[in-house]
Protein backbone atom coordinates (compact mmCIF):
# COMPACT_ATOMS: atom_id res chain seq x y z
CA UNK A 1 0.00 0.00 0.00
CA UNK A 2 2.42 2.61 -1.20
CA UNK A 3 0.21 5.16 -2.83
CA UNK A 4 -3.14 5.91 -1.31
CA UNK A 5 -5.85 4.77 -3.66
CA UNK A 6 -3.84 2.14 -5.52
CA UNK A 7 -6.00 -0.62 -4.07
CA UNK A 8 -9.11 1.07 -5.36
CA UNK A 9 -7.62 1.38 -8.85
CA UNK A 10 -6.68 -2.28 -8.81
CA UNK A 11 -10.26 -3.13 -7.91
CA UNK A 12 -11.58 -0.90 -10.67
CA UNK A 13 -9.35 -2.72 -13.15
CA UNK A 14 -10.94 -6.00 -12.07
CA UNK A 15 -14.39 -4.56 -12.55
CA UNK A 16 -13.50 -3.30 -16.00
CA UNK A 17 -12.04 -6.66 -16.94
CA UNK A 18 -15.26 -8.34 -15.84
CA UNK A 19 -17.38 -5.87 -17.74
CA UNK A 20 -15.49 -6.39 -20.99
CA UNK A 21 -15.09 -10.10 -20.35
CA UNK A 22 -18.81 -10.60 -19.99
CA UNK A 23 -19.14 -10.06 -23.73
CA UNK A 24 -16.65 -12.76 -24.68
CA UNK A 25 -16.00 -15.09 -21.80
CA UNK A 26 -18.44 -17.93 -21.31
CA UNK A 27 -17.19 -18.38 -17.77
CA UNK A 28 -18.72 -15.05 -16.79
CA UNK A 29 -22.16 -16.66 -17.07
CA UNK A 30 -23.98 -14.06 -19.06
CA UNK A 31 -27.71 -13.97 -18.87
CA UNK A 32 -29.58 -16.51 -20.92
CA UNK A 33 -32.93 -15.23 -21.81
CA UNK A 34 -35.78 -16.71 -19.95
CA UNK A 35 -39.19 -15.23 -20.40
CA UNK A 36 -42.47 -16.93 -19.89
CA UNK A 37 -44.28 -17.38 -23.18
CA UNK A 38 -47.60 -15.86 -22.39
CA UNK A 39 -50.70 -17.13 -24.10
CA UNK A 40 -53.86 -15.17 -24.70
CA UNK A 41 -55.25 -16.50 -21.46
CA UNK A 42 -53.55 -16.55 -18.09
CA UNK A 43 -53.77 -20.01 -16.49
CA UNK A 44 -55.94 -19.74 -13.42
CA UNK A 45 -54.75 -22.98 -11.84
CA UNK A 46 -51.33 -24.48 -11.48
CA UNK A 47 -52.69 -27.60 -13.17
CA UNK A 48 -53.67 -25.64 -16.29
CA UNK A 49 -50.11 -25.06 -17.43
CA UNK A 50 -49.03 -27.08 -20.48
CA UNK A 51 -48.51 -30.62 -19.36
CA UNK A 52 -47.34 -33.06 -21.97
CA UNK A 53 -44.34 -31.13 -23.20
CA UNK A 54 -40.87 -30.89 -21.82
CA UNK A 55 -41.09 -27.19 -22.40
CA UNK A 56 -39.37 -26.19 -19.22
CA UNK A 57 -36.14 -27.71 -20.48
CA UNK A 58 -35.89 -25.27 -23.34
CA UNK A 59 -34.84 -21.64 -23.17
CA UNK A 60 -34.14 -21.73 -19.48
CA UNK A 61 -30.88 -21.09 -17.79
CA UNK A 62 -30.57 -23.75 -15.16
CA UNK A 63 -33.29 -26.36 -15.50
CA UNK A 64 -31.43 -29.55 -16.28
CA UNK A 65 -32.28 -33.19 -16.76
CA UNK A 66 -31.75 -33.64 -13.03
CA UNK A 67 -33.94 -30.86 -11.67
CA UNK A 68 -36.87 -31.70 -9.48
CA UNK A 69 -39.78 -29.64 -8.33
CA UNK A 70 -43.06 -31.38 -7.55
CA UNK A 71 -44.17 -35.02 -7.74
CA UNK A 72 -46.17 -36.53 -10.56
CA UNK A 73 -47.91 -39.86 -11.07
CA UNK A 74 -46.58 -42.16 -13.75
CA UNK A 75 -48.65 -44.18 -16.15
CA UNK A 76 -47.52 -46.44 -18.96
CA UNK A 77 -48.60 -46.34 -22.59
CA UNK A 78 -52.32 -46.03 -23.07
CA UNK A 79 -55.20 -44.35 -21.31
CA UNK A 80 -53.85 -42.75 -18.12
CA UNK A 81 -56.30 -44.35 -15.73
CA UNK A 82 -56.04 -47.75 -17.43
CA UNK A 83 -52.29 -47.91 -17.00
CA UNK A 84 -51.60 -45.89 -13.87
CA UNK A 85 -49.01 -47.58 -11.72
CA UNK A 86 -50.31 -46.30 -8.40
CA UNK A 87 -52.26 -48.87 -6.40
CA UNK A 88 -53.26 -46.40 -3.65
CA UNK A 89 -51.20 -48.16 -0.99
CA UNK A 90 -50.86 -44.79 0.80
CA UNK A 91 -47.24 -45.28 1.85
CA UNK A 92 -46.25 -41.92 0.40
CA UNK A 93 -49.15 -40.25 2.19
CA UNK A 94 -47.88 -41.65 5.46
CA UNK A 95 -44.20 -40.89 4.90
CA UNK A 96 -44.56 -37.40 3.42
CA UNK A 97 -42.77 -35.10 5.90
CA UNK A 98 -45.06 -32.07 5.48
CA UNK A 99 -48.17 -34.25 4.92
CA UNK A 100 -49.17 -32.73 1.61
CA UNK A 101 -50.56 -35.85 -0.09
CA UNK A 102 -54.16 -36.93 0.18
CA UNK A 103 -55.23 -40.28 -1.24
CA UNK A 104 -58.57 -41.99 -1.34
CA UNK A 105 -58.53 -45.64 -2.26
CA UNK A 106 -61.02 -46.80 -4.88
CA UNK A 107 -63.87 -49.03 -3.77
CA UNK A 108 -63.44 -51.47 -6.64
CA UNK A 109 -60.43 -53.11 -8.17
CA UNK A 110 -59.41 -52.50 -11.71
CA UNK A 111 -57.30 -54.51 -14.09
CA UNK A 112 -54.44 -52.57 -15.61
CA UNK A 113 -52.24 -53.63 -18.50
CA UNK A 114 -53.21 -57.27 -18.16
CA UNK A 115 -52.08 -57.33 -14.56
CA UNK A 116 -53.94 -58.61 -11.58
CA UNK A 117 -56.83 -56.37 -10.60
CA UNK A 118 -55.68 -53.79 -8.06
CA UNK A 119 -57.04 -50.79 -6.27
CA UNK A 120 -56.47 -47.45 -7.92
CA UNK A 121 -56.45 -43.93 -6.45
CA UNK A 122 -59.96 -42.52 -6.57
CA UNK A 123 -58.54 -39.24 -5.30
CA UNK A 124 -54.89 -38.29 -5.36
CA UNK A 125 -54.20 -34.70 -4.39
CA UNK A 126 -50.89 -33.00 -3.85
CA UNK A 127 -51.05 -29.61 -2.24
CA UNK A 128 -48.15 -27.80 -3.89
CA UNK A 129 -48.60 -24.93 -1.49
CA UNK A 130 -47.22 -27.27 1.18
CA UNK A 131 -44.94 -29.67 -0.71
CA UNK A 132 -41.26 -29.21 0.09
CA UNK A 133 -39.88 -31.08 -2.94
CA UNK A 134 -37.93 -33.49 -0.76
CA UNK A 135 -38.45 -36.58 -2.94
CA UNK A 136 -39.12 -38.88 0.00
CA UNK A 137 -42.39 -40.04 -1.61
CA UNK A 138 -40.36 -41.21 -4.61
CA UNK A 139 -37.95 -43.12 -2.40
CA UNK A 140 -40.60 -44.98 -0.44
CA UNK A 141 -42.88 -45.90 -3.35
CA UNK A 142 -42.59 -49.65 -3.95
CA UNK A 143 -44.35 -49.48 -7.33
CA UNK A 144 -42.28 -46.75 -9.01
CA UNK A 145 -45.52 -44.89 -9.47
CA UNK A 146 -44.53 -41.44 -8.22
CA UNK A 147 -41.56 -39.48 -9.52
CA UNK A 148 -40.48 -35.85 -9.58
CA UNK A 149 -41.52 -33.43 -12.27
CA UNK A 150 -39.28 -30.53 -13.20
CA UNK A 151 -42.06 -28.16 -14.18
CA UNK A 152 -41.67 -24.90 -12.31
CA UNK A 153 -44.01 -22.45 -14.06
CA UNK A 154 -46.92 -22.74 -11.68
CA UNK A 155 -47.87 -19.22 -10.61
CA UNK A 156 -51.54 -18.74 -9.98
CA UNK A 157 -53.83 -16.20 -8.40
CA UNK A 158 -56.08 -18.85 -6.86
CA UNK A 159 -54.96 -19.85 -3.40
CA UNK A 160 -57.02 -22.93 -2.73
CA UNK A 161 -58.24 -24.46 -5.97
CA UNK A 162 -55.31 -23.33 -8.03
CA UNK A 163 -52.56 -24.81 -5.93
CA UNK A 164 -54.15 -28.20 -5.41
CA UNK A 165 -52.92 -30.59 -8.08
CA UNK A 166 -55.61 -33.20 -8.57
CA UNK A 167 -55.10 -36.72 -9.84
CA UNK A 168 -55.65 -35.84 -13.48
CA UNK A 169 -53.14 -32.98 -13.32
CA UNK A 170 -50.56 -35.27 -11.81
CA UNK A 171 -50.85 -38.11 -14.31
CA UNK A 172 -47.92 -38.06 -16.71
CA UNK A 173 -46.77 -40.69 -19.16
CA UNK A 174 -43.56 -42.61 -18.86
CA UNK A 175 -42.45 -41.03 -22.16
CA UNK A 176 -42.69 -37.61 -20.60
CA UNK A 177 -40.61 -38.85 -17.71
CA UNK A 178 -38.01 -40.09 -20.17
CA UNK A 179 -38.00 -36.70 -21.80
CA UNK A 180 -37.38 -34.67 -18.66
CA UNK A 181 -35.14 -37.08 -16.73
CA UNK A 182 -33.62 -39.42 -19.34
CA UNK A 183 -30.87 -40.95 -17.22
CA UNK A 184 -32.98 -41.49 -14.15
CA UNK A 185 -35.88 -42.89 -16.17
CA UNK A 186 -33.65 -45.31 -18.06
CA UNK A 187 -32.09 -46.52 -14.82
CA UNK A 188 -35.54 -46.93 -13.26
CA UNK A 189 -36.91 -48.84 -16.23
CA UNK A 190 -33.89 -51.09 -16.23
CA UNK A 191 -34.29 -51.78 -12.54
CA UNK A 192 -37.98 -52.58 -12.97
CA UNK A 193 -37.20 -54.93 -15.88
CA UNK A 194 -34.44 -56.63 -13.90
CA UNK A 195 -36.67 -57.08 -10.89
CA UNK A 196 -39.42 -58.45 -13.08
CA UNK A 197 -37.06 -60.88 -14.79
CA UNK A 198 -35.67 -62.03 -11.47
CA UNK A 199 -39.16 -62.45 -10.10
CA UNK A 200 -40.26 -64.42 -13.12
CA UNK A 201 -37.20 -66.63 -13.04
CA UNK A 202 -37.82 -67.30 -9.40
CA UNK A 203 -41.45 -68.02 -10.06
CA UNK A 204 -40.60 -70.31 -12.93
CA UNK A 205 -38.15 -72.21 -10.78
CA UNK A 206 -40.70 -72.47 -8.02
CA UNK A 207 -43.32 -73.63 -10.47
CA UNK A 208 -41.03 -76.19 -11.98
CA UNK A 209 -40.19 -77.47 -8.54
CA UNK A 210 -43.84 -77.57 -7.66
CA UNK A 211 -44.71 -79.36 -10.87
CA UNK A 212 -42.03 -81.87 -10.27
CA UNK A 213 -43.27 -82.44 -6.77
CA UNK A 214 -46.81 -82.68 -8.03
CA UNK A 215 -45.81 -85.16 -10.71
CA UNK A 216 -43.91 -87.23 -8.23
CA UNK A 217 -46.87 -87.13 -5.95
CA UNK A 218 -49.24 -88.00 -8.77
CA UNK A 219 -47.01 -90.84 -9.78
CA UNK A 220 -46.92 -92.11 -6.27
CA UNK A 221 -50.65 -91.74 -5.96
CA UNK A 222 -51.22 -93.42 -9.28
CA UNK A 223 -48.99 -96.25 -8.24
CA UNK A 224 -50.81 -96.52 -4.98
CA UNK A 225 -54.10 -96.42 -6.79
CA UNK A 226 -52.95 -99.02 -9.27
CA UNK A 227 -51.92 -101.14 -6.38
CA UNK A 228 -55.26 -100.54 -4.72
CA UNK A 229 -57.05 -101.30 -7.92
CA UNK A 230 -55.01 -104.41 -8.38
CA UNK A 231 -56.04 -105.36 -4.92
CA UNK A 232 -59.65 -104.41 -5.44
CA UNK A 233 -59.92 -106.18 -8.79
CA UNK A 234 -61.17 -109.20 -7.03
CA UNK A 235 -63.87 -107.16 -5.33
CA UNK A 236 -67.15 -106.01 -6.97
CA UNK A 237 -66.47 -103.49 -9.76
CA UNK A 238 -68.46 -100.57 -8.28
CA UNK A 239 -65.60 -98.15 -7.96
CA UNK A 240 -63.91 -98.91 -11.27
CA UNK A 241 -66.04 -96.33 -13.07
CA UNK A 242 -64.41 -93.32 -11.35
CA UNK A 243 -60.94 -94.73 -10.88
CA UNK A 244 -59.33 -93.31 -14.06
CA UNK A 245 -61.08 -89.94 -13.95
CA UNK A 246 -59.65 -88.04 -10.90
CA UNK A 247 -56.64 -86.15 -12.23
CA UNK A 248 -54.24 -86.30 -9.36
CA UNK A 249 -52.22 -83.24 -10.36
CA UNK A 250 -55.14 -80.84 -10.12
CA UNK A 251 -55.35 -80.02 -6.41
CA UNK A 252 -51.80 -78.68 -6.07
CA UNK A 253 -52.19 -76.48 -9.14
CA UNK A 254 -55.31 -74.77 -7.87
CA UNK A 255 -53.77 -72.34 -5.32
CA UNK A 256 -51.05 -71.62 -7.83
CA UNK A 257 -53.27 -70.00 -10.41
CA UNK A 258 -53.53 -66.41 -9.14
CA UNK A 259 -49.78 -66.34 -8.75
CA UNK A 260 -49.33 -67.40 -12.32
CA UNK A 261 -51.40 -64.48 -13.51
CA UNK A 262 -49.50 -62.16 -11.26
CA UNK A 263 -46.32 -63.42 -12.79
CA UNK A 264 -47.15 -61.83 -16.11
CA UNK A 265 -46.87 -58.36 -14.57
Amino acid at each position, binding site marked *: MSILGSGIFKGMAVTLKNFVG*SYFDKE*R*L*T*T*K*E*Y*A*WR*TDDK*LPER*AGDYPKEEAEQLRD*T*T*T*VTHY*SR*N*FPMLLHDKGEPMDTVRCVACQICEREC*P*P*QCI*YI*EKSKDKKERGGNKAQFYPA*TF*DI*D*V*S*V*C*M*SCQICVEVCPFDAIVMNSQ*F*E*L*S*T*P*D*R*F*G*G*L*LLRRDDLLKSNDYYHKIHPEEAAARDKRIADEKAAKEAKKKAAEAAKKKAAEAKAKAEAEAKAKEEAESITKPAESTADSPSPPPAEPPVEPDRPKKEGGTE
Partner: protein
Amino acid sequence: MTTPNTSPSVELDDTTRAELERAGVIVSKVDFLYNWARGGSVWPLTFGLACCAIEMIASATSRFDISRFGSEVFRPSPRQADLMIVSGTVTKKMAPQVVRIYNQMPEPKWVIAMGACAISGGPFKQGYNVLKGIDRYIPVDVYLPGCPPRPEAVLQSLNYLQEKIRTQDIQSDPAFTGGRRQYPVPKFTGTDLEPPYNPDVWQPPTNPNAPADEEQEKEATA
Protein backbone atom coordinates in the same frame (compact mmCIF):
# COMPACT_ATOMS: atom_id res chain seq x y z
CA MET B 1 -58.26 -10.19 -7.06
CA THR B 2 -60.38 -8.43 -9.63
CA THR B 3 -61.42 -10.08 -12.82
CA PRO B 4 -60.05 -8.47 -15.97
CA ASN B 5 -62.56 -5.85 -16.97
CA THR B 6 -62.03 -3.76 -20.03
CA SER B 7 -65.35 -1.94 -20.21
CA PRO B 8 -67.38 -0.30 -17.46
CA SER B 9 -70.16 -2.66 -16.51
CA VAL B 10 -72.51 -0.02 -15.08
CA GLU B 11 -75.87 0.39 -16.80
CA LEU B 12 -76.29 3.97 -18.04
CA ASP B 13 -78.92 5.93 -19.93
CA ASP B 14 -78.22 7.09 -23.48
CA THR B 15 -77.15 10.65 -22.90
CA THR B 16 -74.59 9.85 -20.23
CA ARG B 17 -73.53 6.80 -22.20
CA ALA B 18 -72.75 8.98 -25.19
CA GLU B 19 -70.84 11.27 -22.93
CA LEU B 20 -69.02 8.44 -21.26
CA GLU B 21 -68.27 6.79 -24.55
CA ARG B 22 -66.38 9.83 -25.54
CA ALA B 23 -64.72 9.80 -22.15
CA GLY B 24 -64.39 6.04 -22.36
CA VAL B 25 -62.17 6.24 -25.37
CA ILE B 26 -59.85 8.48 -23.49
CA VAL B 27 -60.09 6.36 -20.39
CA SER B 28 -59.16 3.21 -22.24
CA LYS B 29 -56.17 4.94 -23.73
CA VAL B 30 -55.10 6.17 -20.34
CA ASP B 31 -55.59 2.63 -19.08
CA PHE B 32 -53.25 1.28 -21.68
CA LEU B 33 -50.58 3.89 -21.06
CA TYR B 34 -50.84 3.58 -17.31
CA ASN B 35 -50.69 -0.17 -17.31
CA TRP B 36 -47.87 -0.33 -19.81
CA ALA B 37 -45.79 2.03 -17.70
CA ARG B 38 -46.63 0.43 -14.40
CA GLY B 39 -46.15 -3.10 -15.67
CA GLY B 40 -42.70 -2.29 -16.98
CA SER B 41 -41.40 -0.72 -13.79
CA VAL B 42 -42.54 -2.79 -10.88
CA TRP B 43 -40.14 -1.94 -8.07
CA PRO B 44 -39.93 -4.69 -5.47
CA LEU B 45 -39.25 -4.18 -1.81
CA THR B 46 -35.99 -5.51 -0.37
CA PHE B 47 -37.73 -7.85 1.94
CA GLY B 48 -36.23 -11.22 2.71
CA LEU B 49 -37.68 -13.47 5.37
CA ALA B 50 -36.07 -16.89 4.95
CA CYS B 51 -34.70 -19.38 2.46
CA CYS B 52 -36.69 -18.06 -0.52
CA ALA B 53 -35.03 -14.65 -0.13
CA ILE B 54 -31.78 -16.14 -1.36
CA GLU B 55 -33.45 -17.31 -4.55
CA MET B 56 -35.05 -13.89 -4.86
CA ILE B 57 -31.58 -12.33 -4.68
CA ALA B 58 -30.36 -14.91 -7.19
CA SER B 59 -33.09 -13.83 -9.60
CA ALA B 60 -31.65 -10.31 -9.45
CA THR B 61 -28.12 -11.44 -10.23
CA SER B 62 -26.57 -11.41 -13.65
CA ARG B 63 -27.50 -14.94 -14.60
CA PHE B 64 -31.24 -14.43 -14.33
CA ASP B 65 -31.36 -10.68 -14.40
CA ILE B 66 -34.72 -9.45 -13.26
CA SER B 67 -33.82 -6.04 -14.71
CA ARG B 68 -34.86 -7.34 -18.12
CA PHE B 69 -38.38 -6.88 -16.81
CA GLY B 70 -37.77 -3.51 -15.22
CA SER B 71 -37.73 -4.73 -11.64
CA GLU B 72 -34.09 -4.49 -10.68
CA VAL B 73 -34.65 -1.51 -8.42
CA PHE B 74 -35.05 -3.22 -5.07
CA ARG B 75 -36.11 -0.49 -2.69
CA PRO B 76 -35.28 -0.84 0.99
CA SER B 77 -38.09 1.52 1.96
CA PRO B 78 -41.72 0.47 1.62
CA ARG B 79 -42.60 4.06 0.70
CA GLN B 80 -40.87 3.67 -2.65
CA ALA B 81 -41.87 0.12 -3.52
CA ASP B 82 -44.68 -1.25 -5.65
CA LEU B 83 -44.30 -4.94 -5.10
CA MET B 84 -43.82 -6.92 -1.96
CA ILE B 85 -42.36 -10.38 -2.53
CA VAL B 86 -43.13 -12.23 0.70
CA SER B 87 -40.21 -14.61 0.43
CA GLY B 88 -40.14 -17.10 3.24
CA THR B 89 -41.80 -18.27 6.40
CA VAL B 90 -43.96 -15.71 8.14
CA THR B 91 -43.98 -16.49 11.83
CA LYS B 92 -46.58 -15.22 14.24
CA LYS B 93 -44.03 -12.85 15.70
CA MET B 94 -43.22 -11.44 12.28
CA ALA B 95 -46.74 -11.22 10.82
CA PRO B 96 -47.64 -7.84 12.44
CA GLN B 97 -44.57 -6.23 10.94
CA VAL B 98 -45.34 -7.66 7.49
CA VAL B 99 -48.84 -6.19 7.60
CA ARG B 100 -47.45 -2.88 8.84
CA ILE B 101 -44.96 -2.75 5.97
CA TYR B 102 -47.75 -3.51 3.52
CA ASN B 103 -49.80 -0.67 4.99
CA GLN B 104 -46.93 1.72 4.45
CA MET B 105 -46.61 0.97 0.75
CA PRO B 106 -48.27 3.49 -1.56
CA GLU B 107 -50.87 2.51 -4.14
CA PRO B 108 -50.82 0.82 -6.56
CA LYS B 109 -49.25 -2.08 -4.76
CA TRP B 110 -49.04 -5.80 -5.37
CA VAL B 111 -48.01 -8.83 -3.38
CA ILE B 112 -46.39 -12.06 -4.56
CA ALA B 113 -46.43 -14.86 -2.00
CA MET B 114 -43.25 -16.69 -2.87
CA GLY B 115 -42.69 -20.21 -1.70
CA ALA B 116 -44.70 -22.74 0.24
CA CYS B 117 -44.19 -21.05 3.60
CA ALA B 118 -45.56 -17.69 2.56
CA ILE B 119 -48.58 -19.29 0.88
CA SER B 120 -49.65 -21.73 3.56
CA GLY B 121 -46.96 -22.19 6.18
CA GLY B 122 -45.52 -24.89 3.96
CA PRO B 123 -43.56 -27.68 5.59
CA PHE B 124 -43.64 -25.81 8.88
CA LYS B 125 -47.40 -25.38 8.94
CA GLN B 126 -47.77 -27.91 11.75
CA GLY B 127 -45.61 -25.77 13.98
CA TYR B 128 -47.03 -23.64 16.74
CA ASN B 129 -45.33 -20.43 15.68
CA VAL B 130 -45.89 -20.31 11.94
CA LEU B 131 -48.59 -18.28 10.25
CA LYS B 132 -50.50 -20.47 7.83
CA GLY B 133 -50.37 -18.13 4.89
CA ILE B 134 -49.82 -14.41 4.67
CA ASP B 135 -53.04 -14.08 2.68
CA ARG B 136 -54.93 -14.20 5.96
CA TYR B 137 -54.02 -10.57 6.55
CA ILE B 138 -53.13 -8.98 3.23
CA PRO B 139 -54.46 -9.61 -0.29
CA VAL B 140 -52.06 -11.62 -2.42
CA ASP B 141 -52.04 -11.23 -6.19
CA VAL B 142 -49.88 -14.12 -7.34
CA TYR B 143 -49.02 -17.31 -5.49
CA LEU B 144 -45.76 -18.94 -6.48
CA PRO B 145 -45.40 -22.50 -5.16
CA GLY B 146 -42.06 -24.20 -4.66
CA CYS B 147 -39.69 -24.85 -1.81
CA PRO B 148 -37.85 -22.73 -2.75
CA PRO B 149 -39.00 -21.76 -6.26
CA ARG B 150 -36.24 -21.45 -8.82
CA PRO B 151 -35.17 -17.96 -9.87
CA GLU B 152 -36.84 -18.56 -13.24
CA ALA B 153 -40.06 -19.20 -11.37
CA VAL B 154 -39.70 -15.82 -9.70
CA LEU B 155 -39.37 -14.26 -13.12
CA GLN B 156 -42.40 -16.17 -14.33
CA SER B 157 -44.49 -14.95 -11.43
CA LEU B 158 -43.37 -11.43 -12.21
CA ASN B 159 -44.36 -11.94 -15.84
CA TYR B 160 -47.70 -13.25 -14.67
CA LEU B 161 -48.17 -10.19 -12.52
CA GLN B 162 -47.29 -7.90 -15.41
CA GLU B 163 -49.89 -9.62 -17.56
CA LYS B 164 -52.39 -9.03 -14.79
CA ILE B 165 -51.43 -5.39 -14.53
CA ARG B 166 -51.96 -4.94 -18.25
CA THR B 167 -55.60 -5.96 -17.93
CA GLN B 168 -56.35 -3.79 -14.93
CA ASP B 169 -59.05 -1.19 -15.19
CA ILE B 170 -58.15 2.01 -13.41
CA GLN B 171 -61.81 2.93 -12.96
CA SER B 172 -62.77 -0.09 -10.95
CA ASP B 173 -59.54 -1.38 -9.50
CA PRO B 174 -59.25 -1.03 -5.74
CA ALA B 175 -55.75 0.31 -6.21
CA PHE B 176 -57.25 3.51 -7.62
CA THR B 177 -60.71 3.81 -6.17
CA GLY B 178 -60.34 3.59 -2.43
CA GLY B 179 -57.12 5.36 -1.60
CA ARG B 180 -54.30 3.56 0.11
CA ARG B 181 -55.41 0.13 1.24
CA GLN B 182 -54.61 -0.45 4.86
CA TYR B 183 -55.52 -3.49 6.87
CA PRO B 184 -55.65 -3.83 10.63
CA VAL B 185 -52.38 -5.05 12.07
CA PRO B 186 -52.87 -8.26 14.03
CA LYS B 187 -51.66 -8.36 17.57
CA PHE B 188 -49.19 -10.97 18.73
CA THR B 189 -50.33 -12.06 22.16
CA GLY B 190 -47.34 -14.27 22.86
CA THR B 191 -49.11 -17.45 21.90
CA ASP B 192 -51.24 -16.55 18.92
CA LEU B 193 -52.32 -13.75 16.67
CA GLU B 194 -55.43 -11.75 17.41
CA PRO B 195 -57.57 -11.89 15.25
CA PRO B 196 -56.64 -15.22 13.61
CA TYR B 197 -57.48 -13.81 10.17
CA ASN B 198 -58.92 -10.74 8.57
CA PRO B 199 -62.42 -11.64 7.32
CA ASP B 200 -62.33 -8.87 4.71
CA VAL B 201 -59.40 -10.51 2.99
CA TRP B 202 -59.66 -14.20 3.70
CA GLN B 203 -62.37 -16.75 4.33
CA PRO B 204 -61.85 -20.37 5.32
CA PRO B 205 -62.06 -22.54 2.21
CA THR B 206 -64.43 -25.38 1.48
CA ASN B 207 -63.10 -28.88 1.32
CA PRO B 208 -62.61 -29.75 -2.35
CA ASN B 209 -63.13 -33.43 -1.63
CA ALA B 210 -66.37 -33.02 0.32
CA PRO B 211 -68.81 -31.71 -2.33
CA ALA B 212 -67.75 -34.40 -4.79
CA ASP B 213 -70.34 -36.74 -3.24
CA GLU B 214 -73.12 -34.22 -3.70
CA GLU B 215 -72.16 -33.71 -7.30
CA GLN B 216 -72.12 -37.42 -7.88
CA GLU B 217 -75.55 -37.66 -6.33
CA LYS B 218 -76.76 -34.85 -8.54
CA GLU B 219 -75.39 -36.62 -11.56
CA ALA B 220 -76.98 -39.84 -10.44
CA THR B 221 -80.39 -38.19 -10.05
CA ALA B 222 -80.03 -36.35 -13.36
